[in-house]
């Protein structure tokens, strides 16, 4: 069954008629029902959570925890495995702080590992990664000064250190599992941090296989699902991931809300990230005892309205039917790839099998110029390095342009993009020919 037409659900299209929004990978537009649910919190009950004893406070707590339950069902996890953060970035920082820093102590001993004795523990990241799934690990493995310049931690003994290992991409932007095998064999890997879907190449790493290999080698795995969660069904139990992070604002929800999923036994073994109210059982002058997960990891008043908004966004998203959404987006992506391939001098980046986005370069025209000119035609694309400098270095390009799709994207948007690109080309080529 085809996905229903959803454009009327999104009030921004009334406010911005003629808007061709092709930047959903940066942030998604919001449906009215999400805005209504956020507004409802502020206008109808508005109280703080977990503490109050009056009806409005009980209602707030109920809605907040119900949002948590909605997220848990969305991932097929338990509510105590769902931590609300302010973003996917914060979720990954939480794991870096509370798990990554203690990697060496956590590595299970086994004969294979003993053979690698004398080598520090390693965290593996891929060349596909967004800076938010690189920099937190960089901070764990490097000493940095105030300007951010770093050097691999001076080694007291090799045993003590955690080091960063890069899993490079293949020519077509995919990841070769044999390369991972080699890394896992030669290093004491404690954690593999990998994206579920590249925000530039659209590449979809084989998560299930990566999990199996990582676990076999005694390593844990964190999946950055900021893009993946919006475009593919997720079942954390089936995937067997140890940690997974995603963000609300890319999933048609408010800004300022993210989610960390972690296996409960891991979360229970991890020290808290931030300290403050809400996450404590008891505070004495010389001793503090903490709550269990997930509340242990939610210090201070949480982003209540935002979490409730995220719950509504997930409900909205699921009401469209994940299969229908996938079909709609895949069809659009194929159409986009086909049409963009017809533009002379345009190179599409990434593999054939991809999520719903297309990054590209145009010969002789810098992506920033493309995006600026398209912007003036009310066409929103993104240009630059998309927070993936190592990836762009690996591709040997300074920047790229990117069009990305959501539930409200339609063929007409892609047609307008093509017309816009050709118009820019005509203008630039004319100027170029006047030599």
């Amino acid at each position, binding site marked *: 069954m085809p996905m229903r037409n959803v454009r009327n659900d999104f009030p921004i299209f009334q406010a911005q008629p003629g808007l061709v929004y092709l930047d959903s990978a940066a942030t998604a537009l919001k449906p009215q029902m999400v805005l209504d649910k956020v507004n409802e919190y502020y206008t109808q009950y508005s109280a703080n959570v977990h503490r109050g004893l009056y009806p409005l406070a009980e209602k707030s707590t109920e809605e907040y925890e119900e949002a948590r339950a909605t997220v848990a069902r969305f991932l097929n996890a338990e509510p105590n495995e769902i931590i609300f953060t302010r973003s996917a970035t914060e979720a990954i920082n939480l794991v870096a702080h509370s798990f990554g820093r203690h990697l060496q102590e956590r590595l299970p001993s086994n004969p294979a590992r003993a053979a690698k004795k004398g080598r520090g523990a390693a965290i593996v990241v891929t060349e596909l990664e967004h800076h938010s799934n690189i920099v937190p690990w960089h901070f764990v493995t490097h000493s940095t000064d105030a300007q951010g310049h770093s050097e691999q931690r001076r080694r007291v003994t090799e045993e003590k250190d955690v080091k960063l290992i890069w899993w490079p991409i293949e020519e077509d932007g995919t990841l070769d599992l044999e390369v991972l095998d080699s890394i896992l064999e030669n290093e004491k890997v404690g954690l593999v941090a990998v994206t579920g879907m590249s925000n530039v190449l659209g590449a979809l790493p084989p998560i299930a296989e990566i999990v199996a290999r990582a676990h076999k080698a005694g390593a844990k795995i964190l999946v950055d699902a900021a893009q993946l969660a919006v475009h593919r069904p997720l079942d954390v139990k089936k995937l067997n991931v140890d940690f997974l992070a995603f963000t609300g604002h890319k999933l048609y929800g408010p800004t300022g809300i993210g989610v960390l999923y972690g296996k409960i036994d891991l979360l229970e073994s991890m020290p808290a990230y931030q300290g403050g109210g809400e996450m404590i059982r008891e505070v004495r002058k010389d001793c503090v005892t903490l709550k269990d997960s997930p509340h242990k990891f939610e210090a201070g008043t949480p982003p209540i309205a935002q979490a409730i908004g995220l719950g509504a966004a997930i409900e909205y998203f699921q009401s469209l039917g994940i299969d229908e959404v996938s079909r709609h987006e895949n069809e659009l992506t194929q159409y986009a790839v086909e049409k963009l391939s017809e533009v002379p001098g345009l190179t599409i980046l990434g593999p054939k099998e991809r999520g719903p986005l297309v990054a590209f370069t145009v010969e002789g025209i810098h992506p*920033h110029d493309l995006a600026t000119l398209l912007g*003036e*035609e009310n066409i929103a694309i993104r240009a630059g390095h998309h927070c993936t400098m190592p990836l762009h270095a690996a591709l040997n390009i300074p920047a790229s342009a990117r069009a990305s799709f959501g539930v409200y994207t339609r063929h007409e948007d892609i047609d307008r993009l093509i017309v816009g690109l050709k118009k820019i080309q005509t203008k630039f080529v004319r100027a170029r020919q006047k030599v």
Partner: protein
Amino acid sequence: MTNLYREEILDHYYNPRNSGKLTPADLVGHETNPLCGDEVTVYVKFDGEKIGQVKFEGSGCAISQAATSMLTEYLVGKSRDDLEKLDLQTILSLLKVQVGPGRLDCALLPVQAIRNAKHRASTILARQT
């Protein structure tokens, strides 16, 4: 389409003036914008109190390269004082267009490159005294 990419700017982009190196040069300044990959190197040679020759090498977006090309034309024959006074306004008056906040760094690239050069020159001078 906008004036930002008016013919003169695209002309400077595809037919840069004063392209090349100067060796020896009195000032050599380099600047990159890692956010988008623009870069320029500007070479300046004085002729007494005036700027005798300016050349540049670079790659990147139309705004940054055209701005640099236009700046090299502007600078020849100007005084050392004019070089000191280089700022965003100078560039904008050369480009003759409004540059949005997202592209200001592109327009400023050659100014920053020259500031880097001057900084290095004065550092060397300080060390010599």
